[in-house]
């Protein structure tokens, strides 16, 4: 009898799936331009979730359909893309583009229309608009949540002076400004600061200047293209024996192609991440295994530690919220999201009133024993040792940086 009802249920849901219109989820996400590399990996993860949820019968018994457009990493395109999603494609749910800049232009739009928006690795983008239906998936909150790990590790080992290098770009500046404030509050003395413009050719002179300033730690806020050049220059010039910690906010060192090509020159760098092997979340390993197969086919980031799990998590959160409220009503969903915690492949997630994570946890990792030309090594525990936060901690920092680097 139970078997029969199961069959019936399956048949019914299949009928329902076929009959009712799909639940449409819309996103504009960079496939080209500076954010394109990350965007492609993120989109792949979202598509995996769509397959998974449809295999389980969809949302509210309806099939899920993902509509994704390329925002070209350009904020000028996102208002058009999102109105197309809303008014022409009539999507039911929205996910924000990858990154702060493309997200910023749609914040007033969603606020004005009272729509739920799932944030996608942006930084403090809701700060001005203060939309109460915004939920960011990123493991960070404000600048403090991000930088305090790095600064605390430094202070624990007796650092008193700090140097800053930051890209003249949106996110890097936000981060650096926050870090400078915290450094000041915690009594760290800033001995050098340098903002560099996009497309800086060579960082030798900057690294040389840092060496001359003899700081105890160096906080770097850089973009992918520059991160590589900076790491390279550091390996050539050396930052000097005084520097205990180097890194912090280097975007790009989470992306597999970059990690692979830098290889052993990553060793010793302490940098933020979102997920690294060793962080025990239920389901993440299975996800990454499946992801690796698809990524190889799609020729996107093969490891996919940085963005993909968190994009899959967006899907899981929506799935759980829709299932719990049995509705696609935006206000209802938002209320539910604010008042509950969600279990995802990147751990339990809940939000503060501003829609950022209630308990941000930005792992600070140190690269150790990385060899050249080997992608698979990064799947091992211990290549990226977690120094912070305490709940994930897997080791103590090796200092000074020159020693950790294995250099002179």
């Amino acid at each position, binding site marked *: 009898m139970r078997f029969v009802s199961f069959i019936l249920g399956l048949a019914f849901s299949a009928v329902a799936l076929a009959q009712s219109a799909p639940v449409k989820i819309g996103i504009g996400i960079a496939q*080209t331009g500076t954010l394109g590399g990350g965007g492609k990996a993120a989109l792949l993860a979202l598509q995996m979730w769509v397959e998974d949820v449809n295999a389980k019968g969809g949302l509210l018994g309806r099939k899920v359909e993902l509509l994704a457009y390329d925002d*070209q990493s350009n904020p000028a395109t996102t208002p058009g893309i999102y109105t197309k999603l809303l008014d022409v494609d009539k999507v039911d749910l929205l996910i924000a583009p990858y990154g702060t800049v493309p997200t910023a232009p749609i*914040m007033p739009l969603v606020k004005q229309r009272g729509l739920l928006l799932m944030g996608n690795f942006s930084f403090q983008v809701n700060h001005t608009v203060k939309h109460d239906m915004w939920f960011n998936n990123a493991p960070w909150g404000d600048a403090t949540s991000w930088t305090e790990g790095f600064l605390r590790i430094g202070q624990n080992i007796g650092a008193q002076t700090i140097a800053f290098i930051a890209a003249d770009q949106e996110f890097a500046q936000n981060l650096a400004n926050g870090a400078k404030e915290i450094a000041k509050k915690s009594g760290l003395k800033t001995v050098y600061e340098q903002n560099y413009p996009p497309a800086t050719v060579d960082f030798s002179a900057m690294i040389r200047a840092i060496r001359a300033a003899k700081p105890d730690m160096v906080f770097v806020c850089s973009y992918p293209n520059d991160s590589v050049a900076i790491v390279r220059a550091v390996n050539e010039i050396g930052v000097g024996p005084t520097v205990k910690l180097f890194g912090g906010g280097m975007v790009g060192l989470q992306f597999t192609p970059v990690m692979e090509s830098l290889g052993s020159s990553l060793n010793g760098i302490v940098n933020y991440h979102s997920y690294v092997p060793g962080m025990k979340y239920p389901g993440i390993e299975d996800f990454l295994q499946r992801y690796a197969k698809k990524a190889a086919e799609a020729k996107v980031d093969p490891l996919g530690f940085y963005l993909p799990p968190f994009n899959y998590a967006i899907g899981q959160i929506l799935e759980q919220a829709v299932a719990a409220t049995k509705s696609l009503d935006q206000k209802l969903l938002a209320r539910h999201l604010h008042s509950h915690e969600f279990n995802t492949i990147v751990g339990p997630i809940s939000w503060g009133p501003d829609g950022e994570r209630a308990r941000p946890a930005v792992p600070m990792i140190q690269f150790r024993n990385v060899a050249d030309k080997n992608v698979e090594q990064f799947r091992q525990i211990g290549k990226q040792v977690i120094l912070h936060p305490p709940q994930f901690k897997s080791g103590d920092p090796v200092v000074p940086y020159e020693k950790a680097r294995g250099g002179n």
Partner: protein
Amino acid sequence: MKFWIGMAVTVALAAGLALSRTNEYFFYAGFVVLQFVVLATAWNILGGYAGYVNFGTAAFFGIGAYTAVVLFKAAGAPLALQILAAAVISGLLGFGTGLLTLRLRGIFFSIATVAVIFIMETAMVNWRYVGGATGMQLLRPPVMEPFESYTRMLFVTMAILAVIAVSIARYIEVSWIGRGLRAIRDSEEAAECFGVPTLQLKLFACTVSGALMGAAGAAMPMYMSFIEPPSSFSLTYSVSALAMPMIGGTSHWLGPVIGAILLGSVQQIVTVTISNEINVLVVGVLLVVFVVAAPDGVLGLLKKLRWWLRSSR
């Protein structure tokens, strides 16, 4: 007369659409296309009529946008005032750039305008008041009656700007100024020898063109509710403003309008259909195909077609 009726109809149509129940997406996409109509028309005043290639559209556009932001932040100035001020500042920038380099051969002017983009962008990156490198989010003021949404209002504003830009371009084209500019393009030395005050005319064209580009830029911060240097000074604006008149035809005011509507719409469409690398390719391929195969643009093709039809009859 026919022209003015056409322009009035355009504005009326835009306003009518904005007050109707037309899909909101239309206004977002339409705003962008109209913005390119203004940019292409403005570019054509100097580039098409006088043959001086301005690569710096992005600089004038960006400075227009930032002027608007400054006024908005400092005084909460209304949109019309922002646009007006942006036109003045960008016009001055055009005048200054022109004064420095329009005496030289055309290519030097082109290179100088590239330099202006970088200088202006660097200045904005380092100016904290307007957000510097991090950019700045802007809260739109409440929408004015009778419009239902701010974007509808921006759409109508841009339609009016487009009509103004086209009217100015047409006036210049049919007036003595246009004849002088064409003379400059054909042979600057001969023009000067036959009484055309070439430097003054070029400066005038550069100023007007810069001002219109600035006006187009002024509406952008409100459209995005956000401003940041890289996207404000994006090379895309420079390339599109040059490509559109080339595709439409540079010798007539209608050319840039056709080019902007054509290429602008194609860009909007591929963004939401193809959604990968190919959409960047569209501009490049269209540009090359047109400058090689149809040097006088769509207008030239139409002329040829008409001539062919007449002669085959």
